[in-house]
């Protein structure tokens, strides 16, 4: 009973209702603008809401979180610049749709599926939080390492025509991720004596350069071609479309919740894994992947919004952040006089149900705001390229700068933009590069932790893997993905 009334607080209080709405609305735009991130917005809000009571402050932050994760997909679809890392996978099939004049439909699917994923994440948070967090705690360094390896294998799905070029791009991405001061031993890696390089290469700078700038440069090839007219008569997907993708979106929501709940992995990895899952399990997509497959939109969008609910699971049950945004929210709870930790759910169950309520509300507002204003957004792509492209380049520069207020990041972004341009022209896909950057730290840190824990002995590590059920499942998945294509070849040859 108490739970229900706490859950309803944000719905019944007009001020809280308004704050969740305002937060969600602002979040969509923050998410959509490259370089402005939810993490940044929430940390600014800490100072801004300093003197407020805790409920309104959280209501605003939760709205921004939910809206922001969704908003990243907007620019990914319209301009091929993901507004946030979690939207990278969305652009892979969303942008080809926009090129064909189907941006409205793409945004419509994205919105409904984000709502669906968000809802699954919230339901799991509400009914199974303690269970999921106990499960997440079981992940040992070797399991995170295997998870990263699983992620790296996605290169296969992202490589396009040439697998070998995809492998090169993936390894290059991993390398970019290792640049800077090694956080574990403070050894210099690829810093070439420059102290500015010690902080590493900002991942967002790489992303904006590789996607935004390189795409803008490619578009300049036919700068005077008229922009594609966008059809905007069909925005909300039909009921049959939604039910058709229901099984896929449920599975991808599951991926999202678990990956989101694991401390150290978040919506970006969840979205890419879900994309890969969709590509492997969809036998005959109506449109091929990479050219506007609807499944390629459904999967990452359900997963990254489900990861929001997932990220709150360890935060609420254990006081452990599930991702960067929940890390700041934990700080905010401290500032507002609460003590996040395992006792919070027991001492202050109201807080838990309030957060579940605010998330639910934010999810509903996301659906409403997401489905309105699409016409205006879509018009952006119809701007003549000769005007749009300079503005995109400028936005990319500002976005790269905004992350750390660092000019070095701008130089990196431009450098990667030009490199990405040539890579694109010569048939290298850029998806694997970003994948490598995202997974580099996860793989590096956990490989080293795992091997150190096992006294630098590979046989001991292997023994640990085969004797732990969780590790064994992950390991089998790795083997399966590696060996399945070989097996298929063998059987095909036999059949022939």
């Amino acid at each position, binding site marked *: 009973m108490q739970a229900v009334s706490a859950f309803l607080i944000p719905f019944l209080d007009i001020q809280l209702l308004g704050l969740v709405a305002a937060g969600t609305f602002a979040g969509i735009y923050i998410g959509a603008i490259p370089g402005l991130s939810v993490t940044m917005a929430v940390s600014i809000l800490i100072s801004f809401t300093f003197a407020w009571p805790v409920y309104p402050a959280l209501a605003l932050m939760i709205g921004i979180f939910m809206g922001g994760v969704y908003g990243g997909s907007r620019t990914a679809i319209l301009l091929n610049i993901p507004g946030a890392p979690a939207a990278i996978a969305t652009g892979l099939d969303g942008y080809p749709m926009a090129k064909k004049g189907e941006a409205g439909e793409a945004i419509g699917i994205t919105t409904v599926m984000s709502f669906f994923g968000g809802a699954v994440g919230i339901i799991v948070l509400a009914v199974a939080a303690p269970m999921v967090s106990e499960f997440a705690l079981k992940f040992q360094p070797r399991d995170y390492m295997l998870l990263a390896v699983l992620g790296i294998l996605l290169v296969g799905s992202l490589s396009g025509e040439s697998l070998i070029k995809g492998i090169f791009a993936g390894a290059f991405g991993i390398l970019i991720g290792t640049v800077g001061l090694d956080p574990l031993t403070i050894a210099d890696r690829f810093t070439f004596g420059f102290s500015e390089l010690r902080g590493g290469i900002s991942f967002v700078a790489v992303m904006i350069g590789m996607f935004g700038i390189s795409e803008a440069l490619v578009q300049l090839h036919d700068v005077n071609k008229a922009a594609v007219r966008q059809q905007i008569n069909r925005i909300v997907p039909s009921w049959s479309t939604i039910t058709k993708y229901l099984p896929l979106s449920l599975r991808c929501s599951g991926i999202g919740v678990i990956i989101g709940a694991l401390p150290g992995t978040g919506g970006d990895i969840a979205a890419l894994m879900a994309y890969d899952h969709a590509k492997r399990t969809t036998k005959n997509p109506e449109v091929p992947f990479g050219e506007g497959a609807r499944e390629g939109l459904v999967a990452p969008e359900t997963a990254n919004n489900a990861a929001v609910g997932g990220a709150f699971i360890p935060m609420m049950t254990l006081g452990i952040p599930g991702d960067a945004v929940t890390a700041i929210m934990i700080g905010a709870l401290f500032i507002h006089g609460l003590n996040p930790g395992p006792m919070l759910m027991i001492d202050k169950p109201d807080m838990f149900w309030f957060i579940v309520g605010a998330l639910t509300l934010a999810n509903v507002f996301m659906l409403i705001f997401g489905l309105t204003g699409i016409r205006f957004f879509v018009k952006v792509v119809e701007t003549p390229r000769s005007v749009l492209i300079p503005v995109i*380049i400028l936005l990319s520069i500002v976005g790269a700068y905004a992350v750390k207020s660092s000019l070095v990041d701008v130089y990196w972004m431009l450098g990667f933009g030009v490199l990405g341009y040539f890579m694109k022209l010569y048939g290298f896909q850029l998806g694997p590069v970003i994948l490598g950057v995202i997974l580099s730290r996860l793989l590096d840190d956990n490989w080293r932790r795992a091997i150190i824990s096992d006294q630098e002995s590979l046989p001991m590590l292997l023994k640990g893997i085969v004797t732990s059920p969780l590790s064994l499942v992950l390991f089998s998945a790795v083997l399966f993905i590696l060996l399945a294509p070989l097996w298929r070849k063998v059987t095909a040859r036999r059949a022939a």
Partner: protein
Amino acid sequence: MREGQTRRPGEALFVGFLTLASLGLLIKAYGIAGFEALSSPGALPMAATAVMLLSALIILRQTIKAPAIRTETIREHILPAAVVVAMVAITAYAFLLEPLGFLITSFLFLAVLIRVLSGRSLFFCVWSSAACVLLIYVVFRIVFSVLMPEGIVPEREILAWLGRLFGGGR
């Protein structure tokens, strides 16, 4: 889509560059910690650069063997004039941002690039660029407190002055 069996102009040069860069980076990665331990900070960089070098060599072999596409030229298909202009403008932007500051550099960048690419009237270029820069400035600098390089415009003083003008002091 393009066949993997043909070579575009400049492709061999680019892949050659990637191969050399991979080799250089592999040597650099070895320099981090050598073969000290499986857990050394150099382990993953060495693995990554080794994979890069191997795959680059395979790509190089494929590329050299492939027949060149005779119908394409560098001038038209790889570096058309518009791309070169944009790259030059971007480079100029990177150099001017610090000394001139965000507002002026961005305005010049947009105005010049839009003018060159679209050939529209000077008036259009000026007002659309100014509006864009102002909008970006308001969102990033004022709402999100991202401190862009000030350069020669004393922004913080102007903002403080505007604040006093509107707020009338406290």
